[in-house]
């Protein structure tokens, strides 16, 4: 029996009952469609996620002293240098950087020098110490006035920036008159009001002073952390280099918090979406396989006379088994093809509805129909064995 004859006989066998063929293939259609749509949508969605990946988060790196969990000597000295900012600005990929530290947490701040018992315009505000680049590193903006610069910092000038909300609460909305705020009895000249920071929103409610001013007036031991804004894609690199630039002798005492790489995010999104739907698709495929096995077995029982006849005209047991295997594989392949098409249409339709660019691995489109065929083959194994075991004498004795 040639391969072509085998194929012809098998196709004639399954097309003899078109309605049954369609129903038999349905399970595989659904299973393969679910798998293809799942994988297709996961790939498409992951591509979207990566494409829209939050540029703010992706370029934000924080370096801070590593918290030594439980190793005896606590109160470790702040290991971040005062000149962290110029050190980091030399690194390739750093757009802006700045140190941050809390100088005092909740000092009495007022705009009038007298101790007013009624407490007018008297607030508890935090005082933060920053290097000149911090606001820029946090994508902040100057609402009014100006930022302090390296000169203010070096001279430890008694100048301050006010966070937007702090200024509001102090009823300060312009700095042209060089208003003064009193932090306790320390007098600071407000040179600007800032807002719009992407991180450290506490700065909006704080009085911000240059590092050395904080050191001189509040006894700040050193910066608590460094905020870095990197160019897109450089976060990983900066994250690796920054600790070395800041503490060349002991970079391991610093830790850099970097955003997860885009590839990592994509893989994770795919994995999340896939896990659930792959299970569903797998279940559908299993049901499909059982359907094929069932119907093929039924078909074997119905076609016992045909099997007997084929044996009588020279078919070996192997010929009979091969025919039923090819029949079930063909049903599986057909289901796989239709299912793949349906899955692709679904992927494209959902993408179109969401204005996404459909992304699909071509190997998936090629492999899914084959998966159907393999499932059909596996499902046909038992029925084919049963068919080959049919004894021609018993088969032919029955009335046809």
């Amino acid at each position, binding site marked *: 029996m040639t391969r072509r004859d085998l194929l012809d*006989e098998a196709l004639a066998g399954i097309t003899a009952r078109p309605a049954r063929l369609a129903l038999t293939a349905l399970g595989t259609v659904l299973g393969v469609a679910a798998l293809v749509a799942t994988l297709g949508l996961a790939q498409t969605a992951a591509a979207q996620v990566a494409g829209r990946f939050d540029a703010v988060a992706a370029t934000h790196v924080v370096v801070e002293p590593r918290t030594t969990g439980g190793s005896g000597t606590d109160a470790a000295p702040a290991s971040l240098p005062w000149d962290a900012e110029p050190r980091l600005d030399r690194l390739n990929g750093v757009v802006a950087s700045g140190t941050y530290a809390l100088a005092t947490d909740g000092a009495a701040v007022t705009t009038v020098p007298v101790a007013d018992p009624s407490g007018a315009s008297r607030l508890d505000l935090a005082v933060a110490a920053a290097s000149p680049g911090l606001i820029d590193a946090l994508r902040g903006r100057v609402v009014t006035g100006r930022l302090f610069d390296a000169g203010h910092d070096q001279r430890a000038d008694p100048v301050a920036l006010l966070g937007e909300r702090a200024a509001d609460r102090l009823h300060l909305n312009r700095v042209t008159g060089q208003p003064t705020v009193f932090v306790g009895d320390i007098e600071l000249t407000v040179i600007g009001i800032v807002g719009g920071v992407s991180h450290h929103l506490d700065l909006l409610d704080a009085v911000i002073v240059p590092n050395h001013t904080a050191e001189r007036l509040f006894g700040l031991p050193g910066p608590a952390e460094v905020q870095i804004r990197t160019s897109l894609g450089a976060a990983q690199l900066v994250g690796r280099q920054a600790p070395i630039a800041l503490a060349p002798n002991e970079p391991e005492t610093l830790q850099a918090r970097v955003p997860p790489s885009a590839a990592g995010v994509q893989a994770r999104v795919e994995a999340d979406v896939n896990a659930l739907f792959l299970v569903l698709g797998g279940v559908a495929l299993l049901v499909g396989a059982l359907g094929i096995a069932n119907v093929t077995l039924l078909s074997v029982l119905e076609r016992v*006379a045909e099997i007997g*006849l084929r044996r*009588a*005209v020279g*078919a070996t*047991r192997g010929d009979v088994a091969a025919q039923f295997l090819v029949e079930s594989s063909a049903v599986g392949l057909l289901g796989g093809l239709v299912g793949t098409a349906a899955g692709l249409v679904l992927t494209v339709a959902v993408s179109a509805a969401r204005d996404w660019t459909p992304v699909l691995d071509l190997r998936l489109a090629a492999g899914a129909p084959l998966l159907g065929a393999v499932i059909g083959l596996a499902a046909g194994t038992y029925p084919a064995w049963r068919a080959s075991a049919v004894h021609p004498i018993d088969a032919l004795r029955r009335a046809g």
Partner: protein
Amino acid sequence: MEAGTDGSVPVVELTEVSRSFPGPPAVHAVRDVDLVIRRGDYVSIAGPSGSGKSTLLHVMGLLDRPTAGTYRLDGVDTQAMSERERAGWRGRRIGFVFQAFHLLGARSVAENVELAMVYTGVTRRRRAERALAALDRVGLGHRVAFSPATLSGGERQRVAIARALVGGPSLLLADEPTGNLDSATAAAILDLFDDLHRDGLTLAVVTHDEAVSRRAQRRVRTVDGSVREVA
């Protein structure tokens, strides 16, 4: 293998053939049968049901193996053959005609006839030619593209006979070929058998019908698994 082409070698040579089915109780369907069918013979094997005539037909048709004795088909001992070889011999040397026709309803008349050559390595073109010739031979040349479902019982049996003839078998084995047919149609089928016999075909017809049996040139009766030549 080519011994079958020599006229002096019998087509069927059964020597002390027995076929018993293990029990309990063990059934000796065929016992110590000696039967020779020569080329061109038209033999009927008649007997009541349970007399072993069907088992004898199955043994002769290589569908069953005897438990004792030797069966030489075209001079070749069939006992030594593997199942695969027996399948090949069934396809090439034996044509079967069944009471129930056993046609495939979803295939055309021509395809049904061609099916007999699918497993014997005949090329597709030769298959089509020979199927047409065989259908012509049984008088159904005009029904080639029909579905068996549209044919009468007699026509269906003719298709089955064409299918049995198409491979050029050494032996045509018919199992109650007229069992499902009315008497007029049955007579036509038996006339066809006579024609085929005249053309030199070797036929063995198993039947319980005396009228059918009488049409044969040689008549064999089976009783309790043994055979006896009647005429």
